[in-house]
Each structure stands twice: as C-alpha cells, then as structure tokens.
C-alpha cells in the first residue's frame, strides 16, 4: 500500500470537497459592497430550517436580547452579518456530516465535544473582548473535523489508533501520528484550505495541539487549545479520545487570562452548552 498523505486523504472525500451552496452565496453577498441586509435575509429565508435555527439562536441566552426576535432580518441586525455567516457555516458543516456511519465514533458524542469546544472558545474570546466571538465558536466547532475525514476514509486504521491510544495511555492525536505519520489537526487544516475558509481558521485548526507553532494567529490557536482541554476535562462529548490532551503553558500565557477567570469560563460553558446542543443538533 502506498503511504497515505493528508492531501490524498482529502482528495478521496468527494462528497465534502466543497461547502453547501447557501454558505457560498451568503459569503458572496456579505463580501459584496453593493449588497444589503434584505438580500442577505432573502438568501437565508430560502432555507426554512436554517432560518428557524437562527431565530432560536438569536432568542437564546447566548445573545441575551431583552425582547423576542421574530424575523430573520432582525436576527441579522442583532447577531451581525459576519457572525451570522459563521453560524451558517457551523450549521452547514454539521448537516454535511450528519449521516455518516458510526461504528467507531458516535456522531452525537463527536458533535457534543465540538459544540462544547466552540462554546468554550466563544466564552474565552468574550473574556478577552474579541470583536467577533462567533468566529471562535466556529473554530472550536471545526477543530477536530479532520478526525471525521480519517474515520470516513480509514475506519479500520482509525479504530487501531483508538486501541493504541488506550493501550499506551497516549492522547489519540499522538497515536494517529504514530500510525499514519500525521494527525487529525493537519487533516482539518487541509480541509479548511480546500474549503477556502479564512487563514485564521486554517491555522487555528492545524495548531490546536501545538499552539506554540502558530505563526500568524497565535491567539486563535491558543483559544481553541484551552477550549479543547476544558471541554475534554468536563467530558462534554468526545471526538474519539478518552483523555484530556496535554496542556501547553505558552497558550494560557498568550491569552492573558488569570486563573480566577477559569470558574467563570466553566460556568458560562455549562450555561450555554445544553442550549447550543439543542439548537445545533435538532433535525
């Protein structure tokens, strides 16, 4: 057998080589200086399930808006257009991977872990007063997506990686490196590149286990690194591994947070996690 490469693995996944059309159209409309709110609302309204999900989200405690949000265009003004695009991306990706067979990895558990990491990254970004916190939600949500690709393309080998991790008490990503010569972070980074998603998202996903190597977006990588650790510590779902991944001190220092902010981060995560799971995972 020829050795598998990250690029080869992605190229074999025909079904997911591009993002859903609605995301692409929305992205174009948001980037078009001549576009306005009504055009964006019109694109969204074509997908009633997506619109309903966005309205539920805008009405949830995550946005703590004092009165009820009844229309998609109102939801856009509250959430923001760029943030909305990120939320549509989050929803689209979950849809894209909804029906994959699940003998080794439970999709429910995988997305629970991804949503928890997304929410935690969003909470950390809020504590750091980042301007667009939804992009951190998406980064957390997609950080382990490479694992789904490995699982889809090499299900047996992926099962062996889980076995090796358990046997040697290794974090799963280290077992992946031992068996394949690369890990899910590298696969995820390549998929983000293939999908033409922003460079910050590519690097954040690619460096979430080695945030000290992020050259251009070290804060993004540090945020998702810590969020992944917290989500695993509270065992909010699992993407296949059963232990908390190793902690890189520089990532925590990079974020400039204090230890006494951690309880608040954990509280906020617990508060929004269940609601987000309900909204993003309902059929």
């Amino acid at each position: 057998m020829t050795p598998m490469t990250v690029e080869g693995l992605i190229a074999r996944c025909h079904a997911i080589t591009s993002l859903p059309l609605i995301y692409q159209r929305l992205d174009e409309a948001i980037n078009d200086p001549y576009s306005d709110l009504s055009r964006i609302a019109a694109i969204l309204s074509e997908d009633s399930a997506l619109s309903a999900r966005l309205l539920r989200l805008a009405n949830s405690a995550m946005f703590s808006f004092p009165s009820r949000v009844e229309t998609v265009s109102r939801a856009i003004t509250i959430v923001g257009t760029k943030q909305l695009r990120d939320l549509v991306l989050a929803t689209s990706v979950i849809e894209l991977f909804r029906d994959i067979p699940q003998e080794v990895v439970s999709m429910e558990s995988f997305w629970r872990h991804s949503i928890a990491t997304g929410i935690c990254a969003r909470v950390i970004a809020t504590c750091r007063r980042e301007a667009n916190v939804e992009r951190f939600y998406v980064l957390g949500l997609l950080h382990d997506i490479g694992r789904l690709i490995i699982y889809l393309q090499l299900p047996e080998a992926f099962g062996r990686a889980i076995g090796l991790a358990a046997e040697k008490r290794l974090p799963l990503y280290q077992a992946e490196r031992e068996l394949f010569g690369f890990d899910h972070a590298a696969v995820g980074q390549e998929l983000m590149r293939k999908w033409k998603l922003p460079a910050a998202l590519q690097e954040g996903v690619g460096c979430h286990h080695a945030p000290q190597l992020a050259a251009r977006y070290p804060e993004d990588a540090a945020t998702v690194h810590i969020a992944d650790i917290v989500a695993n510590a509270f065992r909010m779902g699992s993407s296949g591994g059963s232990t908390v991944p190793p902690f890189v001190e520089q990532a925590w220092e990079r974020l400039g947070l204090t230890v006494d902010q951690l309880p608040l981060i954990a509280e906020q995560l617990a508060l929004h996690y269940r609601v987000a799971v309900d909204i993003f995972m309902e059929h």
Partner: protein
Amino acid sequence: MVLGADVKDLSGRLLLNAGTEVQQQHLKVLRTWGVSGVEVVGEGGEEPAVGDSHTVAAALSPEALTAIEGEIEKRFVAVTLSHPVMVALVALVRDDLTMHYFDEALFK
C-alpha cells in the same frame, strides 16, 4: 419538571427559557448563578436541592468519593498538573463530578 417561567439573573438576563425540561445539568447551572428557586409547572414533588460541592461531598459515600478520584486520574493521565490553571481545572472537575454523583443519588 418543566419551567413555568423564564429564569433570569438579577440584571434581567435570560438564563433558561420557560418550558425547559429541568435536567440535572440545569441544577448546576442554576446553583452557579445563585438561583435558589424557580417556578415549575406540572405535578408537585421534591424540591431540587441547592448546595455547594463541599457540603455535598460530605454527604457522599466513600465509594463515590473513590470513584470521583479515579475518574479524575483517568481523564488527566496525559496532563502535567503542576501549572496553577490545571490545578484549578481539576478542582472544578472534582466539584462537577461531586454534584453529578449527588444529583444521581437524589434522582434515584
């Protein structure tokens, strides 16, 4: 138990929507936000207990306490626990597991 009214914090911020089915996880959320009582619809029954993890830990069986420590060891096997933030994270997870075991005993 289903919430009969929205639960808000002192500043009026929405914590949980009316109609939410109250689960064990919600009890922890409400505790952390200092909410001591909520309005519920449907049949009466036991009041959800509200307390901190230290008083709760004292009420747990030695087996439960051993199980909690075993679970912590399993989860953090790959992590060096010398940094203060990891020490704090382990303490939070211990509180969470303590509450979980306590609620499980309560809902049995």
